């Protein structure tokens, strides 16, 4: 069910961060997408606006990939 969030991530990462859609997959690490820790914090702000779910700093510690972030959000939405 976290897979349902992939289109949202594709949207946000292409529109807000200028990343080509074909690069975005659950397996893609933020590092491989060229996003540093500040970018990831900014990404969480956009995701919060879109989903109402806020990923806290401590939750981001183990978030390395798009899939990790999707799973965290799905978990908090449940």
């Amino acid at each position, binding site marked *: 069910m976290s897979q349902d969030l992939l289109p949202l991530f594709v949207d946000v990462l292409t529109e*807000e*961060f*200028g*990343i080509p859609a074909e690069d975005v997959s659950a397996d893609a690490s933020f590092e491989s997408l*060229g996003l540093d820790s*500040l*970018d990831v*914090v*900014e990404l969480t*702000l956009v995701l*919060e606006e879109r989903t109402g779910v*806020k990923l806290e700093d401590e939750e981001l510690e183990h978030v390395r990939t798009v899939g990790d972030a999707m799973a965290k959000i799905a978990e908090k939405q449940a």
Partner: protein
Amino acid sequence: MTDIVVTGVGIIAPSGRGREAAFAGVLSGRSAVAVDDELVSMGTPVTLACRVPAFNPDEELGRGASRRLDRFTHLGAIAAREAVAHAGLSGDDELITAINPDRVGILMGSGIGGAETWAEEYPRYLEKGPGRTSPMFIPRMLSNTAAGTIAIRTGARGPNMTVNTACAAGASAIHVARDLLRAGAADVMIAGGVEAGITGLSVSAFAQMGALTKNPDPNTASRPFDVDRDGFVIGEGAGVVILETREHALKRGATPLATLLGVGASADAFHATAPPDDGGGAILAISRAIADAGLDLSQIGHVNAHGTSTPLNDVAESRALRAVFGAHTDNLVVTSTKGVTGHTLGAAGAIEAIFAIESLHAQSIPPTANLINQDPDIALDVVSGTARNHTFDVVLSTSMGFGGQNAALLFTGA
């Protein structure tokens, strides 16, 4: 004293982008002032501004540049890239490969820093709360980010600093860079000024001060030294020069474009924004530059003046020139390129230093745009109408910042 030469320049200005276009723009005397759609949409009391030619930051500076970097940093990076390439320091990309980049320093000047970032982020903070504050706010906004970004892009790891003397910052940066070279802190300095402060907030505030012209006609609004001038038009841009010792330039086979003969700086110690009527602080800065260069007054033939088009500045500056040069004042051919570019604030000192160097090469002095009736209180030979061919050896470029901070630079041919 060790000769300091200029071996490269880069510029993005309202008069054009790149060395040739930007100087051709001021030589033409066509003012870059225009009604600014963004200011109109914000309902600011003044809606005229001088923007640089449009560009796409993400295409030019890499994906994420528009999101991660403020506009002033975009401008600085674009000008620095041109300057570094012009000096033959970089290869196909911006990385400095021709010499050891650890010995290349950066000295930038900016009056405001990330003005757009402040203007966008603070309302978001008020509206959405502290938890939605962008983590990019600080790195985008800090006024040293242009210098830091140029270092990241070029690999230059020498001393890296940013000076702020408001509208004199670009000239002050060149001054301090020269001193660092003479102190042996670097072999090459990337030095210049940058500003992108055309926001609703800053334009409204400058208007409230009475600093901006109320003239709504773009074709006459910026008119330095004219009797009908009533304020400046805000501009934006960046100018960057490459400085090094003559010995270093020749050793690496670079072609010097000009020699930086002297620098001078001073404070008015008078008022937060107004100059003293007699141009007191400016007199000191100009005199110090001439003494620093060891020149005779008669050797100076051209002045690229600060000439903002405000009633106070232009008359005080003319009195300062008269006080320094005495009878030789009548032999000086003076211009203010701000008639074309508007006032690019912290970038102006560097942009105008580049125009001064280009005038030296061309032996042609750009006209002061929109100068129709020269103020009778300004007893100077100011070029108006079209560019004037003039034979001269040394040019003086003056800059005066809010805070009463003044800078003067003297250049001659290579």
